[in-house]
């Protein structure tokens, strides 16, 4: 595996300051981008420039500086919305993907879900797409149901159809890409079937936007949530929603900026998207995410997807060399993103991660905020390597070497 392994498809590593770090003389191999991705110089510089030159209240001041900061904030929104293919006016800044999903659960769910209704999620969801629905169901008396995993770690559209056919599902919430299995779910098809059955859809795109070429208008979900910090940007989230639903919803949080007029007893709401952006927004973060999507666009999402697909294929080819290893997730690379969860007989994932760290290889260990999924897989925890555009085959080799060494330390 020598020659090809040394030459990454895309080499942008030098853009990422953190990746020049060394630990005990070893260059860091960052394989934890599904948790949070590293940020390129271009993003850091854009935020720095905004804060040094243009920072002021947005949508508040009449002076030139405030006009400039508002312009930077709103043009970032337009750039981000264009990047994913959605109307900027229906693209709401949130704290993160978690808050975006909670916004739907509170502002849409409380008004539209009641006793006897069902909320349908899946066994591969992140806690952020489980817990808000548990709370909603607790409050409203609705029932939470799960689509099960198939043997190939995917969802069954037949099962979806049969649950929808029972006629009680009011909302379907599904991850676009699983943060553990890497499964790429057929969300456009899920949205189509859910809508035909009268259910509203919420897609958790936290793992999808960073690595897949996307056009949200083709998926056409009622709500699509994601976060900037997995997409090479800072910690700021997005909720893209359908205008007719957003228009009909009550606000999520009340406060400044989200109002049109405040009387002593009641208020009226600002127009979209501001109705859902109470308080002072994270302007520098929005500007940073604008720079991040520009950076992703410049490389091209098709190329990024190809790069991550290559690394995943290479990892799936090399990891079985480690004795006693178990790999999770679909084997079909067309339906799998850049993440590989694994376990090794005789070494707990926590110890795997500790021993990888000795080689400056950063992998995640634990339940990955997906405890129901861990129970489906019959494990308490797994280790997980995940990739982004700055990773190389050489780093997969280092992971394999670290795992071989870990087995030696454990005298296996």
């Amino acid at each position, binding site marked *: 595996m020598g020659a090809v392994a040394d030459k990454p498809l895309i080499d942008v590593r030098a853009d990422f300051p953190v990746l020049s770090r060394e630990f005990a003389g070893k260059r860091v191999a960052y394989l934890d981008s599904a948790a949070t991705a590293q940020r390129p110089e271009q993003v850091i510089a854009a935020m720095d420039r905004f804060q040094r030159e243009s920072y002021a209240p947005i949508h508040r001041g009449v002076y030139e500086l405030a006009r400039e900061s508002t312009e930077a904030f709103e043009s970032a929104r337009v750039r981000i919305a264009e990047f994913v293919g959605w109307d900027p006016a229906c693209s709401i800044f949130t704290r993160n993907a978690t808050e975006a999903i909670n916004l739907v659960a509170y502002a849409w769910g409380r008004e539209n879900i009641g006793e006897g209704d069902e909320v349908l999620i899946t066994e591969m969801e992140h806690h952020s797409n489980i817990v808000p629905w548990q709370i909603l169901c607790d409050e409203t008396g609705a029932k939470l149901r799960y689509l099960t995993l198939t043997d190939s770690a995917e969802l069954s559209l037949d099962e979806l159809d049969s649950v929808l056919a029972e006629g009680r599902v009011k909302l379907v919430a599904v991850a676009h890409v699983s943060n553990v299995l890497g499964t790429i779910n057929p969300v456009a098809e899920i949205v189509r079937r859910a809508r035909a059955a009268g259910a509203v859809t919420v897609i958790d795109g936290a793992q999808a936007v960073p690595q897949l070429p996307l056009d949200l208008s083709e998926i056409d979900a009622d709500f699509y949530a994601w976060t900037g910090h997995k997409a090479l940007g800072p910690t700021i989230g997005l909720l893209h929603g359908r205008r007719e639903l957003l228009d009909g919803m009550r606000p999520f949080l009340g406060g400044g900026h989200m109002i049109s007029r405040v009387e002593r007893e009641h208020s009226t709401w600002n127009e979209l998207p501001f109705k859902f952006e109470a308080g002072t927004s994270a302007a520098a973060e929005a500007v940073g995410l604008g720079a991040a999507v520009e950076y992703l666009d410049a490389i091209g999402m098709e190329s990024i997807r190809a790069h991550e697909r290559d690394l995943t294929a290479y990892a799936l080819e090399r990891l079985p060399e480690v004795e006693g290893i178990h790999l999770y997730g679909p084997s079909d690379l067309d339906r799998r993103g850049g993440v590989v969860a694994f376990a090794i007989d005789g070494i*707990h*994932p*926590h110890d795997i991660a500790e021993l990888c760290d000795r080689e400056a290889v950063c992998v995640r260990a*634990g339940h990955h905020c997906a405890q129901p999924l861990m129970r489906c897989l019959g494990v308490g*925890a797994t280790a997980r390597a995940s990739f982004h555009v700055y990773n190389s085959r050489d780093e997969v080799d280092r992971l394999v070497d670290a795992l071989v060494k870990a087995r030696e330390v*454990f005298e296996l």
Partner: protein
Amino acid sequence: MDALYRDFILEHYKSPRNFGELEEHDLEWHDHNPLCGDELGVHIVVEDGRVKDLRFHGQGCAISQAAASISSEELIGMPLEEIEALGADWVIEQLGIDISPTRRKCALLSLKVMRGATTGDASWPE
């Protein structure tokens, strides 16, 4: 030799002492480490205010499992009120290795369930 995964740590991890369940027991407790999913429970038989026998059960990393195994040998025979007074330093000393902040919760899990069983207080060590 590895500074953390010493021979005796691995030996206790692979062949933990006093592991399993006690059908007849006076005290029991269960807790987990939410960060990494380590699970640990304990069954305790009490006689004259002392631990007459105990068994840990669960699954977890080498550090949490070895800490339970190593300390179990000291805990058997110990008066309950003495267990209530044990602190984090005691476990770390029992382990005899340097524990980094990221592994501290693993190391303390067994004392956490012991204290839970004897005092009913789940909040330790925070």
